[in-house]
């Protein structure tokens, strides 16, 4: 387990602050010794933590601004429009203006709303997304903490957003919001299970839940070693961050904006921020677990590799978002429970067998070599193609004509003896 001095950010700040800690800082800081005496080392440590944490979160806010701008520009290009292009070079200041505007909009709270829950929900929506970045390694020795339960921490924390969705829907006491909130909870819960199981393949090969260790284990990126796990995880990450093929909760044509219908001003801004930050978080997790994180070739620093890969993943997510139509709720649920759940179990099984075969010659806890990973990859790709084909057969919709012929003939309204019973007033969708 890496100690806090393996973390180069911490070491730099800490050694610049503290005086005379030769046990921890062999060469001192950049500017020689700091001003804090040795018995105040804990203070230096806390200050370093605050500074790094603040820097990470502000960098995240900045990148959300840039991401929204890029999102709108790319979206426009996909539709042959020009997109925002007035404020600043290439319209880059448009989102900054939007952010400032959002802050100074009138804040309307509906009369029926449960004010406490209504106000807590936006904060609770943002916090889990922020928490993901506490454990992500951005580069060699550049992380905030490397928990030994890193990936489990991420999955545990992100499920908190389900609670925020329920609170937003219930708190705003809006009919449409409650429909959307229930749909969204069903979706988030359904995709959480395949998401949690699909990482287990990576955990088995790396032999650890720590994200740093998972990156170390990837002599061959896990996207090649376990394509099935990557596919399922990517789909689930899209669903969890409410991206388009799965955005039944915010389906504009049916539900307005869903559970954020009654939010305005900065509270709406919080949801907007959380949505885009969740996209970035999903890209960061995919990069770390499946695209070998910060690892790359020598002349380019590791941080650049990480952010480059993250950008590529984000672009892929945008591409999916702009080109795919929205799925129906029944299709979304069917995919999670009938398709992805089985695919993850198949991935677990095939990876498990291969880990058992290759682990025999290894010393306990040793990582797999690149050759072994390549053999695993070859087998897993065969499993990938076969299982996708098989699941496609199982889930394939019946041809339209055949389904029509099988369906009972409905002659409503002509030829119906009695009108169908009207749904009870107030029953939810």
């Amino acid at each position, binding site marked *: 387990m890496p100690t806090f001095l393996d973390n180069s950010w911490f070491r730099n700040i800490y050694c610049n602050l503290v005086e005379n800690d030769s046990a921890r800082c062999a060469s001192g800081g950049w500017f020689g010794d700091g001003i804090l005496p040795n018995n105040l080392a804990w203070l230096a440590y806390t200050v370093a933590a605050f500074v790094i944490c603040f820097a990470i979160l502000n960098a995240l806010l900045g990148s959300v601004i840039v991401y929204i701008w890029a999102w709108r520009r790319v979206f426009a290009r996909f539709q042959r429009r020009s997109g925002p292009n007035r404020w600043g070079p290439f319209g880059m200041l448009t989102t900054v203006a939007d952010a400032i505007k959002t802050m100074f909009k009138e*804040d309307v709270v*509906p009369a029926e709303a449960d004010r406490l829950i209504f106000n807590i929900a*936006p904060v609770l929506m943002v916090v889990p997304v922020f928490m993901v970045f506490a454990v992500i390694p951005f580069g060699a020795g550049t992380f905030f903490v490397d928990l030994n339960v890193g990936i489990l921490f991420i999955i545990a924390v992100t499920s908190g957003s389900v609670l925020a969705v329920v609170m937003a829907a219930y708190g705003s006491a809006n009919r*449409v919001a409650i429909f959307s909130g*229930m749909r969204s*909870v069903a979706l988030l819960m359904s995709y959480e299970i395949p998401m*949690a199981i699909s990482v287990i393949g990576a955990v088995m090969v790396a032999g650890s839940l720590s994200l740093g260790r998972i990156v170390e284990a990837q002599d061959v990126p896990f996207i090649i070693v376990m394509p099935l796990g990557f596919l399922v995880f990517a789909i689930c990450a899209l669903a969890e961050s409410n991206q388009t093929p799965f955005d039944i909760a915010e389906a504009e044509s049916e539900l307005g904006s869903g559970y954020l219908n009654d939010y305005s001003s900065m509270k709406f801004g*919080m949801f907007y921020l959380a949505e885009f930050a969740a996209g970035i978080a999903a890209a960061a997790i995919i990069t770390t677990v499946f695209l070998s994180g910060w690892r790359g070739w020598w002349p380019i620093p590791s941080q650049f590799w990480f952010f480059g890969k993250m950008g590529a993943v984000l672009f892929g997510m945008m591409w999916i978002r702009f080109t795919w139509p929205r799925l129906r709720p029944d299709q979304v649920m069917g995919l999670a429970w009938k398709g992805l759940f089985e695919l993850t179990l198949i991935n677990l099984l095939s990876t498990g*067998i291969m*880990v058992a075969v290759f682990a025999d010659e290894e010393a306990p806890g040793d990582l797999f070599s690149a050759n072994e990973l390549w053999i695993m990859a070859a087998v897993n790709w065969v499993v990938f193609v076969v299982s996708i084909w098989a699941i496609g057969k199982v889930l394939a919709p019946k041809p339209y004509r055949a389904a029509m012929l099988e369906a009972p003939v409905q002659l409503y309204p002509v030829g119906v003896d009695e009108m169908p019973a009207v749904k009870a007033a107030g029953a939810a969708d």
Partner: protein
Amino acid sequence: MQDYFRQYGLLVIFVAIAIGMPIGMLSLSLLAQRFKVRPSRSSEVKRAAYESGMPPMSPKPTLFNIRYYQYALLFVVFDVETVFLYPWAVKYGVMTQQFGLVALGAMLVFLGVLTVPYLYAWRKRALEWQ
């Protein structure tokens, strides 16, 4: 060991700032209202619930469809399964040294037991959005 607790201390600091940041942004917005930068002209119409621009007609829904409950039940069953899979997966590489494929077999028995309710749910069409 000290570093182990230190890591969680760091996490506490991170949580504090992660909670403080959105609250700070919200209160900045509220402060703007205090200084009359942000307008606050609330009216009965504005405070009405949004129903696509129409005056709200329907009552607030208090009944929910049973299918959400089905999904919640399934979620509980299979999410608990996932929790058991994690510690097994971490020590799996080490366990196979001692027990070979028995380590996998033990988990397969566990998964097999859970496959029965899964198939039952499939058969009863509980996995479909009816």
